[in-house]
């Protein structure tokens, strides 16, 4: 094992260690804590970039490399492994960028709103990284719990009735989802005798029909747990309420939590039920497709009906989840490659939007949004007359101009309009769906239609909100915004612009990543170190 392979463990170990270490400091030494957190996130960003760079170099055989890190140095099916392939590296980088930006935002104000913010924040990052890296199902569960435990506390950060009330729903839903996770894991172990993902990819094609049924049942129960996280309709009702209750930097970090659900569904469905998995091939794909379509529709309607900006952002997250799930359901690697681009772009856009909302809302009364919608319906005669005379010739204040520009960029990103990356992502998905070999089925046309329609719905909803909040503000002050708070928003938006400018190379990376996902047996061989497939069935069917 090359010394560089140790980099694979750092995204988990470093934030865990630093997070625990920060507990030793008194809450008054916030400066030191902040400095340590920022240093940690900076290192994680460097490590993530290094890992992505390592996955770019093909191996001697010309395959994309898979870095396997055996914790405790036991070989793969028996020991626990961390696995870095192109998809994991991509998600790590996305998480590091997001974590870094949101932390900078939090340092301006939010980290003073409650105790132990930095520890919880680092634990959340560690849990996310671990879930992206782990190579076996039970550790996936453990990392899910680590990030969920941190997220319960982070949701409550800043306290207040709204947050406690949201937690009252969020925590039980996730506890029940975790129970489903365990039931799924136990069923899969009971049938196959292994929990290593790569080993499972090898064992599943050899299963007997009566065991296969149980395994598929287990996988379906497991999938439910991930789909709750991803927010698939009808499992995602909790999402807008929870995300809108959380404080801005936390909500922005949560944007990648729903993508974690998508990531696990993508990884596991292709590993377990890829084309090479015998009778189970394509299991659950239809459910993902139809579920995804329903989710897009639900998100679109929800976005139109939203009366407040945080809820609108929540529904945008749901739409992006639906788009991704349906893309996975199509089972076409070209669609998946577009979906991966969409995943990166929509996560950054959602995070930027959550941060932006908090900045905009600072200068407004609570309930201004509801009032605005009511006025839209019933009209306000005075307003029309006043506006014409009084506000002619008044320059737009600089802060509002920047906020408005950022809001516009978010709108363009979510609606999927040119010139930003949202357009390229949607275009990649749509062109792959339409150019499918053997004609486009009716359901796929429906997908195309819903994708367009959801873009329109978001455009309408966000334009309406934007006009009310920024263009025609009613007796609101200019929100006091610091440069450090604006910087992360602009960082995320510039990254989206960068994705557009470097669309070609990024898309190439996504293409190869998506293709690799369709070779589960290669992945299994890399992780298990080239061992031949078992002649007889391990575990399970023994007396």
């Amino acid at each position, binding site marked *: 094992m090359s010394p560089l392979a140790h980099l694979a463990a750092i995204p988990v170990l470093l934030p865990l260690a630093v997070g625990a270490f920060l507990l030793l400091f008194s809450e008054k030494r916030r400066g030191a804590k902040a400095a340590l957190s920022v240093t940690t996130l900076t290192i994680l960003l460097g490590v993530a970039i290094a890992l992505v760079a390592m996955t770019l170099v093909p191996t001697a055989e010309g395959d994309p490399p898979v870095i396997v890190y055996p914790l405790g140095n036991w070989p793969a099916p028996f020991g626990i492994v961390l696995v870095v392939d192109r998809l994991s590296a991509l998600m790590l980088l996305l998480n590091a960028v997001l974590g870094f930006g949101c932390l900078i935002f939090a340092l301006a104000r939010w980290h003073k709103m409650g105790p132990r913010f930095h520890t919880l924040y680092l634990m959340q990052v560690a849990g996310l990284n671990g879930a992206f890296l782990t190579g076996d199902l039970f550790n996936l569960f453990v990392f899910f719990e680590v990030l969920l435990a941190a997220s319960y506390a982070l949701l409550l950060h800043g306290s207040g009735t709204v947050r406690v009330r949201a*937690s009252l729903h969020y925590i039980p839903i996730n506890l029940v989802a975790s129970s489903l996770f365990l039931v799924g894991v136990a069923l899969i172990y009971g049938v196959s005798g292994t929990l290593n993902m790569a080993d499972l990819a090898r064992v599943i094609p050899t299963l007997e029909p009566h065991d296969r049924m149980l395994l598929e049942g287990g996988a379906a129960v497991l999938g439910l747990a991930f789909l709750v996280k991803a927010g698939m309709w009808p499992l995602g009702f909790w999402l807008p309420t929870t995300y809108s209750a959380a404080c801005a930097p936390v909500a922005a970090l949560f944007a990648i939590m729903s993508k974690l659900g998508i990531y696990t569904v993508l990884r596991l469905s292709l590993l377990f039920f890829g084309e090479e998995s015998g009778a189970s091939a394509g299991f659950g794909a239809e459910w993902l497709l139809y579920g995804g379509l329903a989710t897009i529709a639900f998100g679109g309607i929800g976005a139109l009906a939203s009366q407040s900006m945080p809820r609108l952002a929540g529904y945008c997250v749901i739409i992006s989840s639906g788009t991704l799930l349906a893309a996975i359901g199509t089972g076409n690697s070209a669609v998946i490659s577009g979906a991966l681009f969409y995943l990166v772009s929509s996560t950054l856009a959602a995070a930027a939007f959550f941060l932006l909302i908090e900045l905009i809302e600072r200068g407004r009364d609570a309930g201004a949004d509801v009032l605005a919608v009511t006025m839209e319906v019933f009209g306000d005669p005075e307003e029309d007359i006043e506006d014409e005379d009084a506000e002619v010739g008044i320059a737009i204040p600089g802060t509002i101009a920047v906020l408005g520009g950022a809001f516009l960029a978010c709108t363009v990103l979510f609606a999927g309009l040119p010139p930003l990356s949202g357009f390229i992502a949607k275009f990649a998905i749509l062109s792959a769906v339409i150019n499918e070999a053997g004609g486009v089925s009716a359901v796929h046309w429906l997908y195309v239609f819903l994708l367009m329609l959801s873009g329109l719905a978001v455009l309408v909803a966000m334009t309406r909100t934007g006009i009310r909040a920024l263009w025609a503000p009613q007796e609101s002050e200019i929100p006091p915004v610091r440069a450090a708070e604006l910087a992360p928003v602009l960082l995320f938006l510039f990254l989206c612009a960068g994705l557009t400018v470097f669309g070609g190379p990024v898309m190439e990376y996504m293409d190869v990543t998506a293709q690799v996902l369709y070779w589960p047996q290669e992945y299994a061989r890399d992780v298990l170190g080239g061992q031949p497939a078992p002649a007889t069935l391990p575990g399970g069917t023994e007396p």
Partner: protein
Amino acid sequence: MELILAIGIGILAGSGVWLVLRPRTYQVIIGLSLISYGVNLFIFVMGRVRIGMPPILKPGTVGDPAGFADPMPQALVLTAIVIGFAMTALYLVVLLAARGLTGTDHVDGREE
């Protein structure tokens, strides 16, 4: 033996689900606990039900797998119990905070 265990797990999980769907936070937390007991038993049983068999080999011996219980689910269940316990404790705190802030023990934070 399997039948008794299956019925036991079914009753635990069924009562748990019913309680989780009730409107009082105390019922919800008891329901969550019952579900997690049911699930823990389920994981344990997935290693096959065997009576009076050790999960580990004695030093220096070579064992026949048929004479041993599967140690994996036992290790998994231990982790699941610890995590489940911690999460229940955390929810208990939120429950108390909600009771204090909203003045009601309804899960929506207000009476219908």
